[in-house]
């Protein structure tokens, strides 16, 4: 049963620290999404990649957030410096043309 894997599951960090979240998409999927989930905003699309190239990162605050796919098996979302308002659950999802998106279990980030 192929699944999207996200690490870490939980992260507590102090304001100003760098945070890196990792995602392993399902093998063979060529599209990767990063979403942020909060009570107020629901699921916001931060960025998405196809064939490792960023297609749209307009939902991401550029000054502190960055997303990359160093290879087809790894996607990263980095926040530097982190702020309390970044506290949320960050989901990664992967998919391919003709399929839907499959979600990871998320990284629950708390910035204190």
């Amino acid at each position: 049963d192929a699944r999207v894997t996200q690490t870490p599951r939980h992260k507590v960090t102090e304001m100003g620290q760098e945070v890196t979240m990792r995602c392993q998409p399902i093998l063979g999927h060529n599209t990767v999404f990063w979403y942020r989930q909060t009570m107020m905003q629901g699921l916001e699309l931060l960025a998405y990649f196809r064939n490792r190239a960023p297609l749209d990162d307009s939902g991401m605050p550029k000054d502190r957030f960055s997303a990359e796919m160093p290879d087809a098996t790894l996607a990263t979302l980095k926040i530097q410096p982190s702020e309390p308002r970044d506290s949320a659950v960050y989901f990664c999802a992967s998919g391919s043309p003709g399929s839907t998106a499959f979600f990871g279990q998320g990284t629950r980030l708390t910035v204190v």
Partner: protein
Amino acid sequence: AQRVTQPEKLLSVFKGAPVELKCNYSYSGSPELFWYVQYSRQRLQLLLRHISRESIKGFTADLNKGETSFHLKKPFAQEEDSAMYYCALKGTGFQKLVFGTGTRLLVSP
């Protein structure tokens, strides 16, 4: 631009009552519509997609292009249906998948 609107943040019903979770969308092309469900602190799971025209766990949803809606319905709600439900839209050619803000369904005994 793709946009999905779920007007209700919370829908509370009693067990056995009918349920309708509303979803409206905005998209200039031919969209694909989905409903995802998220049980407490779990990952989002696909519930159904409009092109499948199937019923999952008693839920159905019909795409109404005239009203640009994709409401989720179930005739008799069960307690285990309590969860967060998200409507999502995907544009042509696997464009980005955009979600609504979600509706929390609470089914009371």
